[in-house]
């Protein structure tokens, strides 16, 4: 093609393109702006085809490509909604997903609780077995922590502990999910390891007679926290399975198919562990009498079960 045509073409269209580049920087508001942007887009599509035919210089084509990418984003991208619909999403979509992925969630439960039972029995039998997993120092520390009922935390400590629980526990859940990328193995490890540790702590404290104090502390938030860890583990297993067992899909296709399920499980896990952190920080170590705390804990088990089993059913 004649390069002079190309230069004339750029000169003729340039101001229109630059106007479009400015316009696309702001979000689209209202039908009129949307149809105006759509007009600009259709003109740009025609121009882009013409630019290729006229053999424009590489960096000119590149400028147009960038612009086309941005306008395409605005027109065809999802509109980002920031509102209250995520509450409904948590209430309905997450439990639906948990039931749909029921087998995986049950497996994740087994991977956490079976090692926990084994660890508890072992530590209950002998301190030597407990010391295989936890150092004598940390067992000692646990003993001292639960030697008295956990009801003497000040309000200030409560708030700080709430922040710590969110940071620490949600972080653990996210890592438990992310390491599932190696065929689910990371998630399996995190579930089994966490199960063993908390089982050993239970068994050890039962042996030395501090179990009631421990139960008083954990009853309120336990259902939320443990189930949250289980859900993040299930998400990691889903991720690992999608990579290993593709059911005839490509890797990308398999991951794409698993994405909505993973997002719902992980978001559900994060929400549950945040709820657990609120309870753990503000309630679990407060001076409320023990029977109330245990009763509240029982209610939480029912709430979690009712949400996961019944949420989102029509």
């Amino acid at each position, binding site marked *: 093609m004649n390069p002079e045509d190309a230069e004339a073409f750029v000169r003729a269209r340039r101001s229109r393109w630059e106007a479009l580049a400015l316009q696309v920087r702001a979000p689209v508001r209202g039908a009129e702006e949307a149809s105006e942007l759509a007009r600009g887009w259709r003109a740009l*599509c025609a121009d882009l085809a013409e630019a290729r035919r006229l*053999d424009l210089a590489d960096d000119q084509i590149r*400028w*147009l490509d960038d612009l086309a990418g941005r306008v395409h984003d605005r027109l065809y991208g*999802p509109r980002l909604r920031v509102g209250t619909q995520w509450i409904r999403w948590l209430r309905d979509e997450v439990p639906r997903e948990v039931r749909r992925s029921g087998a995986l969630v049950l497996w994740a439960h087994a991977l956490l609780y079976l090692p926990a039972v084994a660890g508890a029995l072992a530590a209950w039998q002998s301190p030597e077995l407990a010391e295989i997993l936890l150092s004598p120092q940390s067992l000692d520390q646990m003993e001292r922590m639960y030697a008295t009922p956990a009801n003497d935390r000040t*309000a200030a400590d409560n708030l*700080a502990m709430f922040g710590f629980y*969110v940071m620490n526990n949600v972080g653990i859940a996210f890592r438990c999910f992310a390491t599932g990328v190696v065929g689910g193995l990371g998630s399996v490890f995190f579930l089994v390891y966490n199960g063993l540790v908390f089982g050993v702590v239970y068994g050890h404290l039962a042996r030395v007679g501090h179990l009631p104090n421990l139960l008083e502390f954990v009853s309120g938030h336990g259902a939320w926290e443990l189930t949250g860890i289980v859900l993040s583990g299930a998400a990691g297993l889903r991720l690992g399975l999608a990579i290993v067992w593709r059911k005839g899909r490509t890797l990308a296709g398999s991951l794409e198919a698993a994405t909505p399920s993973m*997002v719902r499980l992980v978001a559900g896990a994060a929400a549950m562990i945040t709820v657990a952190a609120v309870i753990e920080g503000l309630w679990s170590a407060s001076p409320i009498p023990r029977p109330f705390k245990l009763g509240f804990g029982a209610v939480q088990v029912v709430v979690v079960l009712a949400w996961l089993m019944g949420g989102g059913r029509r």
Partner: protein
Amino acid sequence: MDPVDTVVAFETPERVVFRHRLAGPAPRAVAWLVDALIQVLLGLMVMAVALLAGISLGELGTGVAGAIALLGVFMLQWGYATVFEAWWRGQTPGKVALGLRVVRRDGGPVGWREALLRNLLRAADALPSLYVVGLVTMAVDPRLRRLGDLVAGTMVVAEGRGHLEDTPAIDPPVTPAERDVLPARVRLLPEERAVIAGLLRRAHALGPLRVEELAARLAPQVEARTGVTGQTAWRTLQLAWVRAVRGADA
């Protein structure tokens, strides 16, 4: 199997193709560094707010301060990139600075779902340290994606290197002496024309020595076919280009 290339084409519903250039590990690492610095600065601001709250709230102060500091660090650690990428159409401040953008596999912008997944998977990409896993994955993947990108169905593209300026006129213009020996008609292959135009457009950035070095690789072929000769290889290409493109009036 896709060809190994850093250019990815997308076809729009209008049946027009536009292209994105993939971003490699180097600019992404720099963007990450910029973001890390911003995160540290924001973290310091959170700490300052926490301290002020701690001082001014009396008895509850230490608790509020602790909660603000810990929650703030948590949000910065896990939420910074997710929120920016979902909100700013695939860009964090570091990516804006480097002209990078996250796009979906189909060319569309990332939403909450993609931003959340690709940034949660940072925990896996960053293993064992300094993003070694992510780097290896990028090296293996034809689209330079790290694990998080693979799972979220996204890729990182580089923008903003193009411009619309005309190809500059040759400098100095054709002298009468040169015009006397220039053939009346010069035909260049399309690839040759593109290479010379590219050199003309980038000459100021490359510097005269580098331009001459590059020109020397193409000039013998052009000289042999067209009979155009200049004082240097670069001048040969300039003269051939002017006559081929601008015709007799050059």
